[in-house]
């Protein structure tokens, strides 16, 4: 089973073999969860959103277009995160909910962030997202470009710039 690629597995799921989704869940749920956690800094929310991502995988399995599974998975994850924040933004008429800093202060007691996480939190959400995704070994520049709707070359340049920025923030905090 491990030999089968994500794409083949997802195709089987789309054809109705739902058990294959368990394999995909095992392979990827931690990455999705960690992406969401690094983005939001909220473990409970990340868990709920990861749940939501895999629900959507079940629900929209037939719309899988045989492209890169990881790209598809993280596109769904990003959308879940975005719609969560924009929904909360509307309901709480809160300011800059997407800005992590405001969240951070509220959650500081609950979550014990690593220094890296603290550095990440100081980046813009867009930049943070790119660099987090870039650091996942399974996401190459091709997949990143697919997720962001850009080209691999542009992604390479952008990620490099963000990494330099992050490095500066991180080293300063040491």
């Amino acid at each position, binding site marked *: 089973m491990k030999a089968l690629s994500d794409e083949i597995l997802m195709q089987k799921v789309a054809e*109705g073999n*739902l058990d294959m989704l368990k394999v995909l869940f095992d392979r990827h749920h931690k990455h999705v*969860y960690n992406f969401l956690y690094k983005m939001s800094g909220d473990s409970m929310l990340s868990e709920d959103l990861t749940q939501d991502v895999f629900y959507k995988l*079940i629900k929209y399995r037939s719309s899988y277009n045989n492209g890169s599974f990881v790209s598809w998975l993280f596109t769904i994850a990003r959308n879940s995160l975005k719609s969560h924040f924009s929904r909360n933004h509307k309901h709480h008429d809160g300011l800059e909910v997407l800005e992590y800093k405001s969240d951070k202060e509220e959650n500081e007691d609950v979550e014990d962030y*690593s220094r*890296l996480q603290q550095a990440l939190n100081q980046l813009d959400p867009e930049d943070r997202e790119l660099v987090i995704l870039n650091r996942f070994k399974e996401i190459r520049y091709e997949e990143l470009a697919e997720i962001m709707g850009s080209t691999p070359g542009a992604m390479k*340049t952008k*990620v*490099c710039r963000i*990494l330099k920025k992050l490095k500066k923030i991180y080293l300063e905090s040491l």
Partner: protein
Amino acid sequence: MKNNHISDLIPAYLDGTLDKNTQKKAEEHLSQCPDCQKELEEMKTLFKAFEDDVPHVPTNRLRNKFEEALEAEKESLGKMVPLVPKKKSNWATNLLKVAASIALLVASFQMGSLFQQRKVDGDMAILKDETLQMKQTAMLSLMENQSASKRIQGVNYIEEFEHPDEAIIQALANRLIHDENDNVRLTAFEALSKFSASDTVKNVFIEALGKEKNPSIQIGIIEMLVQIQEKKAIAPMKKLLEQEDTQPFIKEQIKAVLPKIT
């Protein structure tokens, strides 16, 4: 390359995703450029931080909920789309079903037409019977008519009956014996002659022979009686021979045929 820092290549260099040529150039530059070496070391530190970053582990609730959702979906799938996997394997069964349906259809049609036919036959029999009865009534009433031609018409209705009942025979006999019109009696005789096998008809002929005055009818009756070899007819024939008013050629006829009745 001296003035061309490779800081933009460092992440890829660390990830090992540079092609060989670029990697070589980067290494060359790094060996001579302290700035880039510093950059490399710093970036290494950041990358190490990423690697050392202990990934947050979601609770078991996540897996449980996912598996719950998956089971629920599988269940609803089992209810809703059992046709999809069956599609291929059931081709032959479907064909059989179609064949069975057609057979059933044909059988029902045959049964239907059979019953229909029987019903029609039954109806026809009833109708025929009714028609015969009507004709019989018509025939009998016509034979009682004032007009001789109507009576002849009535007598002629006998052709419609293959097996006329006693009432008809009796009515015809009455015409033959009692009708005042020669033509009616002649027609009645002709009608009755078809049923000469019947004893009633034979007796009627014998009775009529005694009474009949019309020579042509007399000859007809005589010929008929001879033909059927009716022995009872001998007596009235002899009587006719003795009677004064009997036509001479009738007497000759009787004389000629009498020996034939043995």
